[in-house]
């Protein structure tokens, strides 16, 4: 057995998954919540986005199970000797991607390259020449790279895409067959129903997204063992692999920071809105003070503090990874602690409104305690605001991480993140010939993550805040969503 390592952010992610599961269970049992989420389900864009988000979440979760592998026993060790563990902490994702992780080149190489990006002096037939050396891993199987490269890449791409397509067609056929059996319809009409949206879920949008994703994965799987698909970075690491590792950082920052705002905002928002008077004044004062400090400065002040704290207590952290991880954890917490003012303001306003309603008055008249009213009558009726703000904030935080890393108060320099990738890209873009692939890969991943979260968030907002539906774009002639009122 390897030795499992529980990092702070791992625990936080597991905890969030637990909260998510509990919320889903709760939502399934509450008719009103179920109805709101059904609105999200009917939105094609939101469901496509959800598919992409699930993939990102899976990557992040796979990258959140850490362990230190067991080392093979020394040849002359006694059989009862203590088991030695590697000093390197790996995650499940690392193990799954062992190939690209270990295929480290010396330095930059262009996507799908067989040769290094920069020239080196080499011995060739006894003469020293300067030329582009072959890569150690990328395109290693080719004997005559110049002639074979194009054909090889094309053949492998076609193979990959073809097998991907095969999987898609087979999978779709199987699912459709089951669907037609279940609904008792013939194959074609039932498939047509799904395609034209006569179903609870927008299967066409989901299907198209899944197809694109599967084709992409198949193509990557076909080429990755032989080439660096998106090239290598300065230290020779596979860029695509680094991007996949960065997904976890982005997800942790986005979700953990959002979760961290909730307790404070909820507590202060409801207290201020319920008790009014001096409690309200005090809480308003606190959040005006917090929000009057420019956020980058406030965060950097906090981060400088934790940096000192970490530097002063090196004995608490066994490995470099743990140290980097605690910094990520604290950074996310700080983002949450400094960012609660916005949510608290919204919750306070909503509580003020609710507090005047008859049912709260009635509860008060019946002698329900303050805590009881807040917990039973106010809290459940403000949760929709939390859900809206939580999904809306996520994408902003992912973008913010890049800015913070640039300022130098972001994640640990050793943590792979989109911010650190963009940072290094700044110098790469001013080189000649330009190194474009790190930036564009990070760009693609980040846009995919943030865009899907934004699309999902806007559907969630429309579902929970009916007023937002008035601003929905309805181009003439385009199919409109069946509105909830009509359903």
């Amino acid at each position, binding site marked *: 057995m390897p030795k499992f390592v529980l990092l702070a952010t791992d625990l936080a992610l597991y905890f969030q998954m637990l909260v998510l599961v509990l919320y889903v269970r709760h939502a399934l049992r509450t008719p009103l919540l179920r109805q709101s989420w059904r609105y999200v389900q009917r939105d094609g864009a939101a469901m496509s986005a959800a598919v992409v988000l699930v993939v990102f979440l899976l990557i992040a979760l796979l990258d959140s199970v850490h362990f230190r592998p067991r080392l093979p026993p020394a040849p002359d060790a006694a059989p009862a000797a203590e088991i030695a563990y590697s000093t390197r902490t790996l995650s499940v994702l690392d193990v799954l991607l062992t190939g690209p992780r270990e295929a480290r080149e010396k330095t930059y190489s262009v996507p799908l390259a067989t040769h290094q990006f920069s020239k080196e002096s080499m011995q060739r037939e006894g003469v020293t020449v300067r030329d582009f050396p072959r890569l150690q891993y990328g395109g290693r199987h080719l004997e005559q790279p110049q002639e074979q490269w194009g054909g090889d890449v094309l053949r492998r791409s076609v193979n990959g895409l073809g097998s991907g397509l095969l999987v898609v067609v087979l999978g779709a056929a199987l699912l459709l067959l089951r669907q037609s059996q279940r609904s008792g319809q013939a194959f074609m009409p039932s498939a047509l129903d799904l395609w034209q949206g006569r179903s609870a879920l927008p299967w066409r949008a989901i299907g198209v997204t899944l197809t694109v994703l599967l084709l992409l994965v198949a193509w990557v799987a076909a080429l990755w063992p032989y080439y660096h698909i998106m090239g290598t970075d300065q230290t020779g690491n596979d860029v695509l692999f680094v991007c996949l590792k960065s997904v976890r950082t982005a997800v942790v920052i986005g979700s953990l920071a959002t979760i961290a705002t909730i307790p404070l905002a909820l507590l202060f928002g409801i207290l201020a809105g319920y008790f009014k008077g001096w409690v309200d004044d005090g809480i308003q004062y606190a959040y005006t003070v917090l929000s009057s400090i420019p956020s980058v400065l406030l965060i950097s*002040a906090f981060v400088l503090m934790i940096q000192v704290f970490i530097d002063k207590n090196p004995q608490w952290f066994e490995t470099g990874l743990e140290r980097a991880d605690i910094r990520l954890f604290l950074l996310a917490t700080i983002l949450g602690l400094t960012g609660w003012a916005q949510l608290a303001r919204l919750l306070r306003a909503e509580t003020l409104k609710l507090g005047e309603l008859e049912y709260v008055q009635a509860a008060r008249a019946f002698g329900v305690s303050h805590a009881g009213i807040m917990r039973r009558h106010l809290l459940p009726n403000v949760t929709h605001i939390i859900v809206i703000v939580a999904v809306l904030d996520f994408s902003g935080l992912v973008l913010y991480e890049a800015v913070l890393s640039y*300022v130098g*108060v972001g994640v640990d320099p050793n943590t792979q993140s989109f911010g650190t990738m963009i940072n290094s890209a700044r110098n790469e873009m001013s080189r000649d010939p330009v190194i474009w692939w790190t930036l564009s890969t990070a760009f693609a991943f980040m846009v995919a993550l943030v865009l899907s979260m934004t699309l999902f968030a806007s559907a969630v907002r429309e579902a929970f805040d009916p007023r937002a539906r008035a601003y929905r774009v309805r181009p003439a002639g385009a199919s409109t969503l069946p509105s909830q009122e009509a359903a």
Partner: protein
Amino acid sequence: MLNYIIRRVLYGLLILIGVNLLTFILFFAVNTPDDMARINIGGKRVSADAIAKWKTQRGYDKPLLFNEQAQGVEKLSKTLFVERSLPLFALQFGASDTGRDIGYELRQRALPSLALALPTFLLGVFVVVVVSLIMVFFRNTYVEFWSVAFAVFLLSVSGLFYIIAGQFLFSTVLKLVPASGFAGGLDMVVFLLLPVAIGIVSRMGGEALFYRTMFLEEIGKDYVRTARSKGLSESVVLFRHVLGNALLPILTSTVAVLPLLFMGALIMESFFGIPGLGSFTIDAINGQDFAVVRAMVFLGSALYILGLVLTDISYTLADPRVRLA
């Protein structure tokens, strides 16, 4: 009115005191000056002498709140709190940890910061209003659909990408403008063109969507229906009636942001090498110059509060229905 303004200003002062206390706790109590010295001198093993010397040079060698060795009033005044925190209220920023006069730096750097931030902000508001009006004018068509989709895409791209890609395209490839730098006088226009343009583009997605919902909200009101039923054309309704009425909240919301423009644009300035307050702040954070960071925190919150007060005043001036007691 005057009464109200005075009350607001006093409340603002109260908030500034809170900010001051918070930063004092963050910078001195959580982190002792010893830690600061250790970070600034660098290295794991720093001798106690070096730390003491660093602290004396920069005036950090006094107790936090209460000086037992001093006499009389000096028991309270010869402390870090009084010497390093209170003078901020008189805008006496003192010297940075590297020994430079912060007040002088601020005066030198305010102009370049404003030269970048003001055009970005004003042009930005103009462009965004125009774009969102066009969106609303073509509402319920594919023009709106695709422009909203494009705005959502713009919103999902990190601002850093715009800067890096813009610098690459316009400076490295097309060589239209210098990549970075700054000059006084009229020459600064050349250096400011690109950052201003990028600043506008990077904000456009989110703000165009925001203004669009604002215009849409306005367009559902009764006076718009009346104007339409009078037989006015849609463009007259939109550009005269709706814009006229929506301009008020837009203008009052800009007032809140105006003072903060002094703080400069952190990222923009450091990428384009503009010697403004934003790059000053970033350098301070990177160099762990706590004195400068503290001064900037104070300045930033003072300007924010100024913005709040100005917003209140502009509301009363702009909308006679708002009466402040």
